[in-house]
């Protein structure tokens, strides 16, 4: 039997093929999936919550000993204390401070002796957390940390299913033209300094995050919003920045920060 491993690169395409909605009944076929990365889990969790708002029932098929809970954060713990390695947490935007989450992520890194640049994590992750806190339509977002000792990276994935980047930017008159353009243009725009729906002092966080990953010899920044994505993928052999359309259109913003460990 063919098995599929879900990654940030194929999860949208896979969900487009595996999710059907007919007469207010959803069907999500997760059979044959052998594994998933940190981002995929957060993406599917956001998708699950998004679909639940549009259907009266959602059936999920899995293979053998796997259950839906293995793929989707369904029964989630809340708050900063729930943040553990390989576990998806549901974070209340109003009840949890960015600093609490940041401190907990730092503790996870220290507990598991992950040799990443802690200063960089502490500098850039709060910007993403702050965005997730102020932008989502719902009052919570999802967060998951993953660590691959063999491949030497630490993943932080954060996702919501709110207005998304295009929905947020278009509220400002100078960016209203983005409403009629594919999501990928809004995402690209959001990485330019001072592009924000808020006042001029803002709009620097994503730009700083972007430039940090651009400068790394190894690292991944993947951001999806609607049916658009943006990817900075650096390793020793190639440095690339790609942007484009995804096959599934998921509300909100989902982001992966992959920090590589020092040798």
């Amino acid at each position: 039997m063919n098995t599929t491993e879900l990654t940030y690169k194929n999860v949208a395409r896979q969900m487009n093929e595996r999710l059907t909605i007919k007469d207010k009944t959803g069907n999500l076929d997760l059979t044959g999936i052998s594994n998933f990365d940190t981002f995929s889990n957060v993406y599917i969790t956001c998708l699950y919550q998004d679909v639940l708002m549009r259907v009266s029932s959602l059936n999920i098929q899995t293979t053998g000993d796997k259950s839906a809970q293995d793929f989707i954060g369904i029964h989630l713990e809340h708050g900063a204390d729930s943040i553990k390695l390989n576990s998806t947490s549901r974070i209340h935007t109003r009840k949890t401070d960015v600093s609490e989450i940041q401190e907990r992520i730092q503790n996870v890194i220290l507990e598991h002796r992950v040799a990443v640049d802690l200063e960089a994590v502490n500098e850039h992750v709060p910007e993403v957390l702050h965005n997730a806190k102020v932008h989502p339509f719902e009052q919570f977002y999802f967060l998951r940390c993953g660590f691959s000792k063999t491949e030497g990276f630490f993943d932080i994935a954060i996702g919501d299913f709110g207005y998304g980047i295009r929905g947020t930017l278009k509220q400002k008159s100078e960016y209203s033209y983005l409403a009629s353009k594919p999501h990928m243009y809004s995402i690209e725009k959001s990485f330019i300094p001072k592009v924000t729906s808020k006042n001029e002092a803002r709009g620097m966080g994503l730009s700083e995050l972007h430039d940090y990953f651009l400068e790394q010899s190894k690292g991944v920044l993947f951001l999806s919003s609607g049916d658009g994505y943006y990817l900075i993928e650096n390793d020793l052999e190639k440095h690339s920045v790609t942007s484009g359309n995804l096959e599934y259109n998921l509300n909100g913003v989902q982001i992966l920060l992959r920090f590589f460990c020092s040798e």
Partner: protein
Amino acid sequence: MKMFKLSNITKRTTSRDHGSDAALAIIELLHNHIIEKVEASSIDGVNSVTIHTNTDELMIDISDDSRPSASFLDEIIYRLDDKNLLHRFRFRIHNDRVFQKLEKISNDRVISININWNDKRKTIKPSDKPSKAKHKIIHRDL
């Protein structure tokens, strides 16, 4: 020198908020002609700056062991520039990392920043070089 702790005047938590509150504190101190130490502590290390008076300009000293985040510095610079006060300040810096952060802020905000590095005075000016954000993007659907 009397210590002025930002933690006494803010309950906010992000580095950017600390930068904003530090800038407001600096502006207030300036208006009251009382220049003291402004210190912001956050859990991402210590965002710390010390303000010194001089005969003709004000020095914001970022000590070598301080690791201020880019957003903290950006917010201070933005706020001072917004009040037309930035030209009165000079940032004393001690390491490459802080220099690079100030260089990026200068480019992104298109403003000049006076610095003192290794006791040499200079001004970081916005670069004519294209921003890193304008690198080549390959379009490909996934």
